[in-house]
Protein backbone atom coordinates (compact mmCIF):
# COMPACT_ATOMS: atom_id res chain seq x y z
CA UNK A 1 0.00 0.00 0.00
CA UNK A 2 1.33 3.43 -0.84
CA UNK A 3 1.59 5.92 2.00
CA UNK A 4 0.82 3.19 4.56
CA UNK A 5 2.68 5.27 7.13
CA UNK A 6 -0.02 7.91 6.86
CA UNK A 7 -3.07 5.77 6.09
CA UNK A 8 -2.88 3.22 8.91
CA UNK A 9 -2.56 5.74 11.75
CA UNK A 10 -5.26 7.80 10.04
CA UNK A 11 -7.58 4.83 9.93
CA UNK A 12 -6.94 4.04 13.60
CA UNK A 13 -7.72 7.61 14.62
CA UNK A 14 -10.85 7.55 12.50
CA UNK A 15 -12.15 4.32 14.01
CA UNK A 16 -11.46 5.58 17.52
CA UNK A 17 -13.26 8.82 16.74
CA UNK A 18 -16.30 7.17 15.20
CA UNK A 19 -16.73 4.76 18.12
CA UNK A 20 -16.57 7.47 20.80
CA UNK A 21 -20.23 6.90 21.80
CA UNK A 22 -19.41 3.30 22.63
CA UNK A 23 -16.21 3.56 24.65
CA UNK A 24 -16.73 7.03 26.18
CA UNK A 25 -19.06 5.64 28.82
CA UNK A 26 -16.99 2.47 29.15
CA UNK A 27 -19.84 0.26 27.91
CA UNK A 28 -22.45 1.54 30.37
CA UNK A 29 -25.65 2.74 28.72
CA UNK A 30 -26.47 5.40 31.28
CA UNK A 31 -29.53 5.20 33.50
CA UNK A 32 -32.96 4.88 31.88
CA UNK A 33 -34.83 8.19 32.13
CA UNK A 34 -37.65 8.24 34.68
CA UNK A 35 -40.16 10.92 33.78
CA UNK A 36 -42.36 11.92 36.69
CA UNK A 37 -45.90 10.77 35.94
CA UNK A 38 -48.90 12.89 36.97
CA UNK A 39 -50.49 11.79 40.21
CA UNK A 40 -54.14 12.48 39.52
CA UNK A 41 -54.72 10.97 36.06
CA UNK A 42 -54.67 7.23 35.40
CA UNK A 43 -54.22 7.12 31.64
CA UNK A 44 -52.98 9.45 28.99
CA UNK A 45 -55.01 10.14 25.85
CA UNK A 46 -53.48 6.99 24.36
CA UNK A 47 -52.10 3.84 26.08
CA UNK A 48 -48.61 4.37 27.51
CA UNK A 49 -46.57 2.46 24.94
CA UNK A 50 -48.52 4.02 22.08
CA UNK A 51 -48.26 7.56 23.36
CA UNK A 52 -44.55 7.18 24.01
CA UNK A 53 -43.98 6.15 20.40
CA UNK A 54 -46.56 8.32 18.71
CA UNK A 55 -46.86 11.55 20.65
CA UNK A 56 -44.86 13.48 18.05
CA UNK A 57 -47.19 12.37 15.28
CA UNK A 58 -50.25 12.86 17.45
CA UNK A 59 -49.30 16.45 18.21
CA UNK A 60 -48.76 17.11 14.50
CA UNK A 61 -52.14 15.62 13.63
CA UNK A 62 -53.80 17.71 16.37
CA UNK A 63 -52.01 20.81 15.12
CA UNK A 64 -53.16 20.35 11.54
CA UNK A 65 -56.70 19.44 12.52
CA UNK A 66 -57.16 22.34 14.92
CA UNK A 67 -55.21 25.08 13.19
CA UNK A 68 -55.56 24.34 9.50
CA UNK A 69 -58.87 22.46 9.33
CA UNK A 70 -60.65 24.22 12.19
CA UNK A 71 -61.76 20.95 13.76
CA UNK A 72 -61.73 21.99 17.38
CA UNK A 73 -64.16 19.34 18.62
CA UNK A 74 -63.20 17.96 22.01
CA UNK A 75 -62.69 14.25 22.58
CA UNK A 76 -63.79 12.24 25.55
CA UNK A 77 -61.57 10.30 27.93
CA UNK A 78 -62.92 8.69 31.12
CA UNK A 79 -66.00 10.84 31.06
CA UNK A 80 -64.21 14.18 30.66
CA UNK A 81 -63.89 16.31 27.53
CA UNK A 82 -60.40 17.26 26.39
CA UNK A 83 -59.18 19.61 23.71
CA UNK A 84 -56.65 18.67 21.09
CA UNK A 85 -54.01 20.94 22.56
CA UNK A 86 -50.49 20.67 23.94
CA UNK A 87 -50.84 23.53 26.38
CA UNK A 88 -54.48 23.04 27.34
CA UNK A 89 -54.53 19.23 27.63
CA UNK A 90 -51.11 17.61 27.83
CA UNK A 91 -49.53 20.19 30.09
CA UNK A 92 -52.54 20.34 32.40
CA UNK A 93 -51.70 16.84 33.61
CA UNK A 94 -47.97 16.80 32.94
CA UNK A 95 -47.46 19.99 34.85
CA UNK A 96 -43.68 20.03 34.83
CA UNK A 97 -41.76 20.18 31.58
CA UNK A 98 -38.48 19.62 33.42
CA UNK A 99 -39.61 16.55 35.36
CA UNK A 100 -41.53 14.95 32.53
CA UNK A 101 -40.80 16.05 29.00
CA UNK A 102 -37.15 16.96 29.44
CA UNK A 103 -36.19 13.73 31.21
CA UNK A 104 -36.59 11.60 28.08
CA UNK A 105 -35.76 14.33 25.59
CA UNK A 106 -32.42 15.10 27.25
CA UNK A 107 -31.54 11.40 27.40
CA UNK A 108 -32.38 10.91 23.72
CA UNK A 109 -30.75 14.23 22.80
CA UNK A 110 -33.90 15.46 21.13
CA UNK A 111 -34.68 19.17 20.97
CA UNK A 112 -38.28 19.65 19.91
CA UNK A 113 -38.98 23.23 18.91
CA UNK A 114 -42.46 23.22 20.45
CA UNK A 115 -41.27 25.25 23.43
CA UNK A 116 -39.96 28.07 21.24
CA UNK A 117 -43.59 29.20 21.04
CA UNK A 118 -45.73 27.08 23.34
CA UNK A 119 -45.46 28.15 26.94
CA UNK A 120 -44.36 25.51 29.40
CA UNK A 121 -46.11 25.59 32.77
CA UNK A 122 -44.38 27.83 35.26
CA UNK A 123 -42.09 25.74 37.48
Amino acid at each position, binding site marked *: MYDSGKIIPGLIIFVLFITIPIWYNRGAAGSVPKPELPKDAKTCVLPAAEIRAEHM*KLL*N*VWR*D*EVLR*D*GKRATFELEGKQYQKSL*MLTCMKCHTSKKQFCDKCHTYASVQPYCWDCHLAPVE
Partner: protein
Amino acid sequence: MDTNRRNFLKVAGISTLAGLGGTAVVDRLVAGAGMAHATTGAGQGAEQAGAAKAGATRYGMVIDIKKFQMDPGLGEKAVKACHQIHNVPNFPEKRDEIKWIWMTNFENAFPEKPNLYQDEVTEKHQLPILCNHCDNPPCVRACPTKATFRSDDGIVGMDYHRCIGCRFCMAACPYGSRSFNWRDPRLFITNINKDYPARTRGVVEKCNFCVERVQIGKLPACVEAIIDSKALVFGNLNDPNSEIRKILKEKHTIQRNPSLGTLPSVFYIV
Protein backbone atom coordinates in the same frame (compact mmCIF):
# COMPACT_ATOMS: atom_id res chain seq x y z
CA MET B 1 -5.93 9.87 -10.11
CA ASP B 2 -5.98 6.67 -12.10
CA THR B 3 -9.19 5.67 -13.81
CA ASN B 4 -10.00 2.71 -11.56
CA ARG B 5 -10.05 4.81 -8.41
CA ARG B 6 -12.07 7.45 -10.23
CA ASN B 7 -14.71 4.95 -11.33
CA PHE B 8 -14.87 3.53 -7.81
CA LEU B 9 -15.53 6.97 -6.32
CA LYS B 10 -18.17 7.72 -8.94
CA VAL B 11 -20.02 4.48 -8.22
CA ALA B 12 -19.70 4.97 -4.45
CA GLY B 13 -21.01 8.53 -4.66
CA ILE B 14 -24.00 7.66 -6.80
CA SER B 15 -24.97 4.65 -4.68
CA THR B 16 -24.79 6.74 -1.50
CA LEU B 17 -27.06 9.37 -3.03
CA ALA B 18 -29.41 6.68 -4.29
CA GLY B 19 -29.46 5.03 -0.88
CA LEU B 20 -30.16 8.24 1.00
CA GLY B 21 -32.66 9.46 -1.56
CA GLY B 22 -34.35 6.09 -1.85
CA THR B 23 -34.92 5.62 1.87
CA ALA B 24 -36.18 9.18 2.15
CA VAL B 25 -38.64 8.63 -0.69
CA VAL B 26 -39.90 5.33 0.73
CA ASP B 27 -40.28 6.87 4.20
CA ARG B 28 -42.25 9.79 2.85
CA LEU B 29 -44.51 7.50 0.83
CA VAL B 30 -45.25 5.40 3.90
CA ALA B 31 -45.70 8.39 6.20
CA GLY B 32 -47.50 10.38 3.52
CA ALA B 33 -50.27 7.83 3.31
CA GLY B 34 -51.05 8.42 6.96
CA MET B 35 -50.49 12.15 7.09
CA ALA B 36 -52.00 13.10 3.76
CA HIS B 37 -55.35 13.99 5.24
CA ALA B 38 -53.77 16.32 7.75
CA THR B 39 -51.85 18.44 5.28
CA THR B 40 -54.58 19.02 2.70
CA GLY B 41 -57.71 20.90 3.49
CA ALA B 42 -57.30 24.48 4.54
CA GLY B 43 -54.53 25.22 2.08
CA GLN B 44 -56.78 25.22 -0.93
CA GLY B 45 -58.84 28.10 0.38
CA ALA B 46 -56.91 30.53 -1.80
CA GLU B 47 -58.24 29.10 -5.03
CA GLN B 48 -61.82 29.19 -3.84
CA ALA B 49 -61.65 32.74 -2.53
CA GLY B 50 -64.64 34.84 -3.37
CA ALA B 51 -66.93 31.97 -4.29
CA ALA B 52 -68.37 30.83 -1.00
CA LYS B 53 -70.14 27.51 -0.97
CA ALA B 54 -73.82 27.63 -0.16
CA GLY B 55 -74.22 27.79 3.60
CA ALA B 56 -70.53 28.50 4.23
CA THR B 57 -69.66 31.02 6.90
CA ARG B 58 -67.78 34.16 6.10
CA TYR B 59 -66.73 36.12 9.16
CA GLY B 60 -66.53 39.88 8.96
CA MET B 61 -66.36 42.96 11.11
CA VAL B 62 -67.91 46.40 11.03
CA ILE B 63 -66.01 49.25 12.65
CA ASP B 64 -67.94 52.38 13.60
CA ILE B 65 -65.43 55.19 13.16
CA LYS B 66 -67.61 57.81 14.86
CA LYS B 67 -67.81 55.78 18.08
CA PHE B 68 -64.02 55.61 18.24
CA GLN B 69 -63.85 59.32 17.63
CA MET B 70 -66.34 60.12 20.38
CA ASP B 71 -64.61 57.90 22.95
CA PRO B 72 -60.86 57.72 22.30
CA GLY B 73 -60.37 55.27 25.18
CA LEU B 74 -62.20 52.53 23.30
CA GLY B 75 -59.36 51.99 20.87
CA GLU B 76 -56.81 51.46 23.60
CA LYS B 77 -59.10 48.97 25.33
CA ALA B 78 -59.58 46.91 22.17
CA VAL B 79 -55.88 46.89 21.29
CA LYS B 80 -54.88 45.98 24.82
CA ALA B 81 -57.38 43.12 25.00
CA CYS B 82 -56.11 41.63 21.75
CA HIS B 83 -52.44 42.00 22.49
CA GLN B 84 -52.77 40.67 26.02
CA ILE B 85 -54.78 37.58 25.20
CA HIS B 86 -52.51 36.59 22.32
CA ASN B 87 -49.17 37.29 24.00
CA VAL B 88 -48.27 39.96 21.46
CA PRO B 89 -44.93 41.40 22.56
CA ASN B 90 -44.41 45.04 23.34
CA PHE B 91 -41.05 46.11 21.94
CA PRO B 92 -39.62 49.46 23.02
CA GLU B 93 -38.14 50.21 19.59
CA LYS B 94 -40.41 50.94 16.66
CA ARG B 95 -38.24 48.90 14.29
CA ASP B 96 -39.08 45.64 16.09
CA GLU B 97 -42.73 46.41 16.76
CA ILE B 98 -45.44 43.82 16.38
CA LYS B 99 -49.06 44.84 16.22
CA TRP B 100 -52.19 42.93 15.36
CA ILE B 101 -54.67 45.80 15.71
CA TRP B 102 -53.78 49.43 16.23
CA MET B 103 -55.09 52.97 16.06
CA THR B 104 -54.09 55.17 13.17
CA ASN B 105 -55.16 58.31 11.35
CA PHE B 106 -57.82 58.36 8.65
CA GLU B 107 -55.31 59.25 5.92
CA ASN B 108 -53.17 56.22 6.81
CA ALA B 109 -56.10 53.82 6.97
CA PHE B 110 -57.58 55.09 3.70
CA PRO B 111 -54.64 56.35 1.62
CA GLU B 112 -56.78 56.18 -1.50
CA LYS B 113 -59.08 58.82 -0.12
CA PRO B 114 -56.82 61.82 0.38
CA ASN B 115 -58.78 64.82 1.49
CA LEU B 116 -57.26 68.26 1.55
CA TYR B 117 -60.04 69.72 3.66
CA GLN B 118 -60.86 67.09 6.20
CA ASP B 119 -63.44 67.67 8.94
CA GLU B 120 -61.96 68.54 12.30
CA VAL B 121 -63.07 65.44 14.14
CA THR B 122 -61.55 63.08 11.57
CA GLU B 123 -58.36 65.09 11.56
CA LYS B 124 -57.90 64.92 15.31
CA HIS B 125 -58.99 61.35 16.07
CA GLN B 126 -57.83 57.90 15.15
CA LEU B 127 -59.49 54.65 14.14
CA PRO B 128 -58.45 51.01 14.48
CA ILE B 129 -57.04 48.99 11.60
CA LEU B 130 -56.26 45.29 11.51
CA CYS B 131 -55.92 42.43 9.07
CA ASN B 132 -58.86 42.63 6.69
CA HIS B 133 -59.19 38.85 6.26
CA CYS B 134 -59.72 39.39 2.58
CA ASP B 135 -61.78 37.03 0.51
CA ASN B 136 -59.14 37.23 -2.22
CA PRO B 137 -56.01 37.59 -0.14
CA PRO B 138 -52.76 38.45 -1.96
CA CYS B 139 -50.76 37.25 1.04
CA VAL B 140 -52.17 33.73 0.68
CA ARG B 141 -51.36 33.79 -3.05
CA ALA B 142 -47.80 34.77 -2.24
CA CYS B 143 -46.94 32.34 0.55
CA PRO B 144 -44.64 29.59 -0.79
CA THR B 145 -45.48 27.06 1.92
CA LYS B 146 -49.19 27.70 2.55
CA ALA B 147 -48.22 28.82 6.03
CA THR B 148 -50.82 31.52 5.63
CA PHE B 149 -54.08 30.16 4.32
CA ARG B 150 -57.68 31.14 3.92
CA SER B 151 -59.91 28.76 5.86
CA ASP B 152 -63.47 27.96 4.80
CA ASP B 153 -65.02 30.32 7.31
CA GLY B 154 -63.29 33.35 5.77
CA ILE B 155 -60.53 33.76 8.32
CA VAL B 156 -57.01 34.14 6.90
CA GLY B 157 -54.96 32.09 9.32
CA MET B 158 -51.25 31.79 10.12
CA ASP B 159 -49.54 28.48 10.74
CA TYR B 160 -46.46 29.47 12.75
CA HIS B 161 -45.12 25.94 12.57
CA ARG B 162 -44.73 26.11 8.83
CA CYS B 163 -43.71 29.70 8.28
CA ILE B 164 -40.14 29.98 7.00
CA GLY B 165 -39.95 33.70 7.61
CA CYS B 166 -39.44 34.75 3.99
CA ARG B 167 -41.70 37.80 4.52
CA PHE B 168 -43.17 37.55 1.05
CA CYS B 169 -46.64 37.89 2.61
CA MET B 170 -45.57 41.14 4.24
CA ALA B 171 -44.56 42.52 0.86
CA ALA B 172 -47.81 41.28 -0.67
CA CYS B 173 -50.23 42.69 1.90
CA PRO B 174 -51.64 45.97 0.55
CA TYR B 175 -52.66 47.10 4.03
CA GLY B 176 -49.49 46.67 6.07
CA SER B 177 -51.29 44.34 8.47
CA ARG B 178 -48.45 41.90 9.08
CA SER B 179 -45.57 41.98 11.53
CA PHE B 180 -42.41 39.92 11.75
CA ASN B 181 -40.60 38.64 14.82
CA TRP B 182 -37.22 40.24 14.30
CA ARG B 183 -36.03 38.81 17.61
CA ASP B 184 -37.23 36.45 20.30
CA PRO B 185 -40.43 38.00 21.68
CA ARG B 186 -40.66 36.02 24.91
CA LEU B 187 -39.02 38.58 27.18
CA PHE B 188 -41.13 41.42 25.85
CA ILE B 189 -44.54 39.99 26.60
CA THR B 190 -45.99 41.96 29.47
CA ASN B 191 -48.64 39.96 31.33
CA ILE B 192 -48.28 36.54 29.77
CA ASN B 193 -51.48 34.65 29.01
CA LYS B 194 -50.65 31.09 30.04
CA ASP B 195 -53.43 29.55 27.96
CA TYR B 196 -52.20 30.74 24.59
CA PRO B 197 -48.81 30.21 22.97
CA ALA B 198 -46.44 32.96 22.04
CA ARG B 199 -44.43 32.99 18.82
CA THR B 200 -40.74 32.49 18.19
CA ARG B 201 -38.29 34.66 16.31
CA GLY B 202 -38.33 34.40 12.55
CA VAL B 203 -42.05 34.01 11.84
CA VAL B 204 -44.67 36.45 10.59
CA GLU B 205 -47.79 37.09 12.66
CA LYS B 206 -51.00 39.08 12.36
CA CYS B 207 -54.55 39.34 13.63
CA ASN B 208 -56.29 35.97 13.35
CA PHE B 209 -59.87 37.17 14.06
CA CYS B 210 -59.47 35.27 17.36
CA VAL B 211 -60.07 32.05 15.44
CA GLU B 212 -59.54 30.00 18.59
CA ARG B 213 -62.44 31.87 20.25
CA VAL B 214 -64.68 32.34 17.23
CA GLN B 215 -64.65 28.68 16.27
CA ILE B 216 -66.04 27.76 19.71
CA GLY B 217 -68.77 30.37 19.58
CA LYS B 218 -67.15 33.31 21.38
CA LEU B 219 -66.50 36.80 20.04
CA PRO B 220 -63.06 38.19 19.19
CA ALA B 221 -61.28 39.71 22.16
CA CYS B 222 -61.28 43.25 20.77
CA VAL B 223 -65.02 43.10 20.11
CA GLU B 224 -65.76 41.70 23.54
CA ALA B 225 -63.60 44.26 25.34
CA ILE B 226 -65.76 47.14 24.11
CA ILE B 227 -69.00 45.26 23.54
CA ASP B 228 -71.15 47.83 25.30
CA SER B 229 -70.21 50.57 22.89
CA LYS B 230 -70.97 48.45 19.81
CA ALA B 231 -68.07 50.19 18.10
CA LEU B 232 -66.92 46.80 16.76
CA VAL B 233 -69.49 44.35 15.45
CA PHE B 234 -68.47 40.85 14.40
CA GLY B 235 -70.55 38.27 12.62
CA ASN B 236 -71.25 36.02 9.66
CA LEU B 237 -71.42 38.02 6.45
CA ASN B 238 -73.08 35.12 4.65
CA ASP B 239 -76.01 35.02 7.05
CA PRO B 240 -78.55 37.60 5.74
CA ASN B 241 -80.20 37.80 9.16
CA SER B 242 -77.08 38.47 11.20
CA GLU B 243 -76.54 41.69 13.09
CA ILE B 244 -73.61 42.63 10.90
CA ARG B 245 -75.66 42.32 7.73
CA LYS B 246 -78.39 44.49 9.24
CA ILE B 247 -75.88 47.21 10.00
CA LEU B 248 -74.40 46.95 6.49
CA LYS B 249 -77.87 47.37 5.03
CA GLU B 250 -78.66 50.43 7.13
CA LYS B 251 -75.39 52.33 7.29
CA HIS B 252 -73.07 53.51 4.54
CA THR B 253 -69.73 51.71 4.84
CA ILE B 254 -66.41 51.97 3.07
CA GLN B 255 -63.51 49.57 2.79
CA ARG B 256 -59.77 50.02 2.60
CA ASN B 257 -58.31 50.13 -0.94
CA PRO B 258 -61.31 48.42 -2.55
CA SER B 259 -59.97 48.97 -6.07
CA LEU B 260 -57.31 46.33 -5.48
CA GLY B 261 -59.96 43.61 -5.59
CA THR B 262 -58.91 41.95 -2.36
CA LEU B 263 -62.52 41.80 -1.10
CA PRO B 264 -61.81 42.67 2.53
CA SER B 265 -64.12 41.43 5.29
CA VAL B 266 -63.74 44.56 7.40
CA PHE B 267 -66.11 47.48 6.81
CA TYR B 268 -65.94 51.01 8.22
CA ILE B 269 -69.01 53.13 8.97
CA VAL B 270 -68.23 56.73 8.13
